[in-house]
């Protein structure tokens, strides 16, 4: 058990020379660095993020501009070719990555924020609150997420903001159930009882005592949620529900899919980009899981 806020732990650990002080975060980080797949995933994601953040400064072509003849194959004129309108695929990848990764990140934050709030209240208080919140969660869980997201985007307009919020709103039930399960397990353990006996209020108990101890699986779930959100955005765009004014990887695939026989490069490159990004995030998730799950942790 990695209890960060265990009151019994001495505040100043450096007074104990026999056991050098190592914060649990550091332990986890060290553990993470021992997982080759996790490190590889992190490296790939870092490259992708740096490319999309700094790439536009070095590759100044606007992804929505028509720069060459439609379906120019990859070559000197356009390194990765052009799409059905003559827009540069490489520019699309660089600029589109920014939108795609942002959608992934923000949607995952929304997912976790809603999921953890509902899950923790539900698991901590139990009783009527739990029953009500579980019903709400179940209601959202039985709605087919893609259809539900399509309805939301159709109702509120095809903009990137709507798409992001829609993905967050349809994805949170898993995080809520996970959080609730952790809270149910933790809330009656001794250190929680001890804090309560020491006079801690509900807010303090939820945020400072139970939640930090429930975090490991939530962090893993949040990481995975980014990957899921990226795929989700791709799915919505594929169905024609992306934001036509913001280039994203999903939009590139969605708009070019009718022309895959005319120019394979229009779909293959953004497809590969999504694949690599989701794979990297998935590897990172595995690495974090290995690092912070004590049952999997290797000794030594």
């Amino acid at each position, binding site marked *: 058990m990695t209890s960060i806020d265990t009151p019994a732990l001495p505040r100043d650990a450096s007074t104990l020379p026999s056991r050098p002080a190592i914060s649990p975060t550091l332990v986890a980080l060290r553990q993470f660095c021992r997982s080759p797949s996790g490190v590889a995933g992190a490296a790939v994601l870092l490259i992708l993020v740096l490319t999309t953040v700094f790439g536009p400064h070095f590759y100044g072509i606007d992804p929505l501009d028509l720069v060459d003849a439609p379906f120019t194959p990859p070559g000197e004129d356009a390194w990765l070719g052009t799409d059905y*309108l003559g827009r540069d695929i490489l520019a699309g990848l660089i600029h589109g990555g920014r939108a795609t990764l942002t959608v992934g990140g923000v949607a995952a934050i929304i997912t976790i924020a809603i999921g953890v709030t509902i899950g923790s209240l539900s698991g901590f208080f139990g009783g009527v609150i739990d029953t009500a919140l579980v019903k709400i969660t179940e209601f959202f869980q039985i709605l087919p997420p893609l259809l539900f997201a399509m309805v939301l985007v159709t109702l509120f307009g095809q903009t990137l903001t709507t798409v992001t919020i829609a993905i967050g709103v349809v994805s949170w039930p898993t995080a809520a159930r996970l959080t609730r399960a952790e809270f149910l397990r933790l809330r009656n353990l001794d250190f929680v009882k001890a804090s309560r006996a020491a006079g801690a209020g509900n807010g303090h108990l939820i945020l400072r005592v139970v939640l930090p101890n429930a975090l490991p699986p939530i962090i893993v779930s949040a990481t995975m949620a980014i990957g899921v959100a990226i795929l989700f955005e791709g799915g919505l765009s594929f169905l024609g529900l992306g934001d036509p004014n913001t280039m994203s990887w999903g939009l590139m695939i969605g708009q070019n899919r*009718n022309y895959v026989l005319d120019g394979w490069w229009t779909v293959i490159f953004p497809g590969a980009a999504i694949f690599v990004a989701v794979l990297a995030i998935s590897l990172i998730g595995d690495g974090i899981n290995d690092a912070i799950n004590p049952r999997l942790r290797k000794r030594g």
Partner: protein
Amino acid sequence: MSPIWSSRTWSFRTPVQKCVLGLAVALSVSGAHLAPASADGTVVIGSSQVPRHFNGAVQSGVATAVPSTQIFASPLRYDENWKPQPYLAESWEISADGKSVTLKLVKNAVFHDGKPVTSEDVAFSIMTIKANHPFQTMLAAVDKVDTPDPYTAVIQLKHPHPALLLAMSPALMPILPKHIYGDGQDVKSHPANLKPIGSGPFRLTEYKQGEFYTLEKFDKFFIPGRPKLDKIVVKLISDPNAMLVSLERGDVNALPLISAVRDIERLEKMPNVLVTEKGFAGIGPINWLAFNTKKKPLDDVRVRQAIAFATNRDFIISKLMGGKAAAATSPIAPGSPLDEPGVEMYKLDLAKSQKLLDDAGYPKKADGSRMALTIDYIPGNDEQQRNIAEYLRSQLKKVGINLDVRAASDFPTWAQRVSSFDFDLTMDTVFNWGDPVIGVDRTYLTSNIRKGIIWSNTQQYSNPRVDELLAAAGQETSAEKRKALYSEFQKIVVSDAPIHFINSTPYRNVFSKGLGGLPTTIWGIMSPLDELYWATPPRT
């Protein structure tokens, strides 16, 4: 017997096994009607157009017109050169003052139920169409129809109405049996609309909603030796790829109204297939960019002209449409005898466009932009609509106009925005329907600015001279003077630019090789297919 086939292994005892068996049987049965049906006298047409019903007297549009023109005959039909031909009317005569048209009907025409076609039916049909058809201008000039004898109908007009001749085409004037539709029920929702009785070359014998309908030869059709086919089956296929594959395999013998460039290119490469662009002059489909002329800054003609000058029509046609479409340069579709190609004035000229915007009082700001506008498009036809909207976003940025593409998730969303005037620019496709009075006037008449109605004058364009010209041309009986009036009209509209005309929709009709008597008239597949036959019967 090998153990695999022993009754123990293959007896369907469990519910799951029964289900599997049932499913297999169901699949093989449903597959049966998809099998090639190209017997000698049968043609199978694949179409994505699902008709609501079969009565073209009260319903416009291609989906109904294709079957309606097979089931119902009309007073006239047309050839490839816009010349009227006798059909139910063996002759027709326009009075000297142009205010009455006398039709002499053939005497041997009967409806599918055996009752004769008389002038009573013609009179009833004309008044029914006038009252119920969405094209209100088409027969608005008709006052009444006299029936001096069973085979003479005299159409009395309030004023001369030259468009009447085209309005008597099969797609626009199906002659309904009065003894069925005259029973007092609302014709728009009449039960006979789904079980139609006409006097055309084919009878509707089966309709499986959303799947197929079957038209069989009418033995007592009034033209001897016609129709040449025994049967036409129209299969409703929603997926374009499935349609193409069906044609390639010979399961389907004709695909009407294909407009996707990639599909056309694929079809042209198929060895056993003939692709024709003939048969659409009558519909006259124009793909255009419309402006909201009442909304700032588009209320300034210079801004609209600037956008037209910044648009490279040649690029759109040659690059985005693979050269398959023809340029449209005026409100009257290319192919119409009234089209005036000389009025075109917008060749790509970015400098001129910039100057017009400067003059209109929209100078470039520090960031290089002058204004921000939105563009809508009809969803579902990416090549003709969305792609041009996206092209314009990139193109108009060059003259400082930031265009935001507004996607609509479905047709009603788009129609709602445009018909309630909640738009700046929109891509649109509108049909001419033969005569300008039928399909062109509605877009430009001040009196047709009708909020809430799509394909009315949603641009809210208003020019008194245009109203005058259209009114005069609508009543002008001299073909020459009429053409001159429409020429002036086209010139003014192009210059006023409530709409920037881009191209004629690249429709194609596609047929299996071996078919003869193809429908290449101005109405194409929306006219009787009584001449269609197998010159070289397909191998079955």
